[in-house]
């Protein structure tokens, strides 16, 4: 009798582990890729809302007003960032992203009344023009960082780290460093650009305090100063950033994306966004500045429920990076032959570092970039953001809230023991909080 072969797979030497060993054997170095962590981690999906029934009254889902206005940077700035929605667009550099992608993100953010953010490449003039509210990142590299652009910014974000690579610097491989990108970054064309992992002019929190004062003096104390960190030792880092004078904390969990970094960082460094958020809120509460210093959370946030849960757990806003790229067509099943040339398939592509992005988002190749018409990309991102806002409002109304910022921890329970422990929420249907009860 013919029988099908039974193929046994080692749980240690999985096909992925075998491929990784053999790739290292060929290259003699660690692996580099784009995107974010592939591994499964406890996330907002592991929480659910306790919406209303008899104990609380819902709002009419399609009609009653549910406001989304959000203020960031109310601590010291004369002009805090006023956003129409609690969703912002995260810093992604011109260089990592194409010109068209950067402009589309700016225009989409403007349509929704929210902010977009520069990146490790300075302020692209077209991006400034497209974005009604632009956050100017002050990164360790200081590529393209100058006082002229500083004065054009609506907020400054001092980047200490990134969720996809906390403790690691940026990486932009030479194939993406064309003449324009090299010019903006004061680099030789075609050279691998490895951004430093720490700032050139300050080392620790006491220096950061003076650095923040310098930036405030240079901008006449008008605009807010955020401090962005990759999530690791969250409680201590948040407290130190607050002590240093941050107006707002931007915290990026390990599900955050990148254009290129060592895959070991993506998979083995930092903590997930869910517990990072919980610890950051606790840190702010412990030092009595919760509500005074705003918290923006990022890292793998993809849906309205993700946003709503982040707000309920205490974030003032969320920031999206990779998800906005996906909205404009990243990993879309078009130009399939080009995915094959990269040795991948749509929905599996993480080859941002190559500069050969089949859909024109993470490339500096003029021909590939034409595959991303700015107008179409703008519409997609704007539609996506709009849909997220509607989802958040729907959940908020179902919880009886007329303002999305009124969502609260009591509106949530956990579905798994891990999520219960990390979020410090009761396991659904019980009063049990893992690690506390």
């Amino acid at each position, binding site marked *: 009798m013919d029988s099908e072969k039974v193929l046994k797979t080692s749980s240690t030497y999985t096909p992925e582990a075998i491929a990784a060993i053999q790739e290292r054997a060929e290259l003699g*170095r660690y692996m580099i890729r784009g995107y974010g962590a592939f591994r499964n981690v406890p996330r907002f999906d592991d929480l659910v809302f306790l919406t209303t029934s008899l104990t609380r009254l819902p709002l009419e889902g399609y009609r009653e007003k549910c406001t989304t206005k959000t203020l960031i940077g109310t601590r010291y700035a004369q002009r805090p960032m006023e956003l129409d929605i609690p969703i912002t667009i995260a810093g992604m550099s011109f260089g990592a992203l194409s010109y068209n992608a950067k402009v589309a993100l700016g225009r989409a953010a403007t349509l929704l009344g929210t902010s977009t953010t520069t990146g490790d490449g300075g302020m692209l003039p077209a991006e400034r023009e497209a974005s009604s509210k632009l956050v100017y990142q002050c990164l360790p590299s*200081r590529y393209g960082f100058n*006082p002229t652009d500083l004065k054009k910014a609506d907020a400054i974000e001092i980047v200490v780290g990134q969720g996809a690579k906390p403790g690691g610097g940026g990486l932009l491989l030479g194939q993406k460093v064309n003449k324009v990108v090299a010019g903006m970054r004061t680099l030789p064309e075609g050279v*691998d650009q490895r951004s430093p992992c720490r700032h050139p002019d300050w080392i620790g929190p006491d*220096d950061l305090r*003076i650095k923040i004062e310098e930036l405030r003096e240079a901008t006449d104390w008008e605009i807010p100063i955020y401090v962005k960190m990759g999530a690791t030792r969250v409680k201590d880092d948040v407290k130190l950033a607050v002590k240093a004078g941050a107006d707002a904390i931007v915290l990026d969990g390990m599900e955050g994306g990148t254009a290129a970094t060592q895959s070991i960082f993506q998979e083995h460094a930092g903590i997930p966004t869910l517990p990072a958020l919980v610890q950051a809120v606790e840190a702010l509460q412990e030092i009595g500045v919760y509500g005074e210093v705003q918290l923006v959370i990022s890292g793998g946030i993809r849906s309205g429920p993700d946003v709503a849960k982040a707000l309920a757990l205490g974030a003032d806003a969320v920031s999206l990076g990779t998800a906005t790229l996906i909205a404009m067509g990243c990993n879309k099943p078009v130009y399939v032959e080009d995915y094959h040339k990269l040795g991948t398939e749509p929905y599996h592509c993480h080859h941002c570092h190559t500069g050969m992005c089949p859909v024109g988002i993470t490339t500096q190749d003029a021909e590939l970039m034409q595959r991303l018409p700015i107008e179409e990309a703008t519409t997609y991102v704007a539609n996506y953001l709009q849909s997220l806002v509607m989802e958040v409002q729907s959940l908020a109304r179902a919880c009886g809230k007329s303002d999305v910022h009124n969502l609260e921890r009591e509106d949530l329970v956990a579905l798994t023991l891990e999520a219960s422990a990390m979020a410090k929420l009761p396991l659904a249907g019980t009063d049990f909080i893992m690690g506390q009860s």
Partner: protein
Amino acid sequence: MQTIPQQIVIDCTNLTTREINQKLKALAASESIPAKLLNPAGRHNLAVGITQIAIAIDGPVGYYCGGLSDNVNIEVFGDCGWSVGENLMSGNITIHGNASANTAASAHGGKICILGNAGPRAGISLKGATLIVSGNVGYGSAFMMQQGCMIVCGDAGANLADSIYEGAIFVGGEINSLGADAKLEPMNDTDWQLLEQELSALNISARDYNFKKVICAKQLYHFKAKDWGNY
């Protein structure tokens, strides 16, 4: 007849940093009158984010003096703290004394002269400015320098020019060690001309020193296998 003041004098003693900088910015916006600051007392963030002004500071200053400035002429008669001239775009900053760490960090243009010693990480991430130090510089100087020129008449500490991309560093004294991807290159006539031109303005004779030139070896321009020896 109205008398035109030759110099505006600001006594920092009872002023906040904000008030001092506001006065300086108002001066820069209105007239091109040089300002003199008295009693700075090591205060941080003096004359930051300012454009088109001449300032003399009588005494020591703290961090970031002249940082994020453009088209300025700043002279400090005293020592200075970290990151003097950080991200300077153009103009001149001269320190008649010693400088602490991170002198001229990521400065894009202009010239920063330290007429004394500079601490560690001098010229870090330099992006096109000229940094001249008449004395010594500490460890990690010129780390990740991208463009520009650094002239050190004295000695340089460990790991000089680690991971630089472009630009040149001239050292008149001893170099403790070179950093990753840095190498010595023989001095040529053009180099000596440059040094004589830059240093003669400071009444320093370049030929009194045994200058050595350090540039990027360009071995790490492209990430490749088996280059760990360079790190």
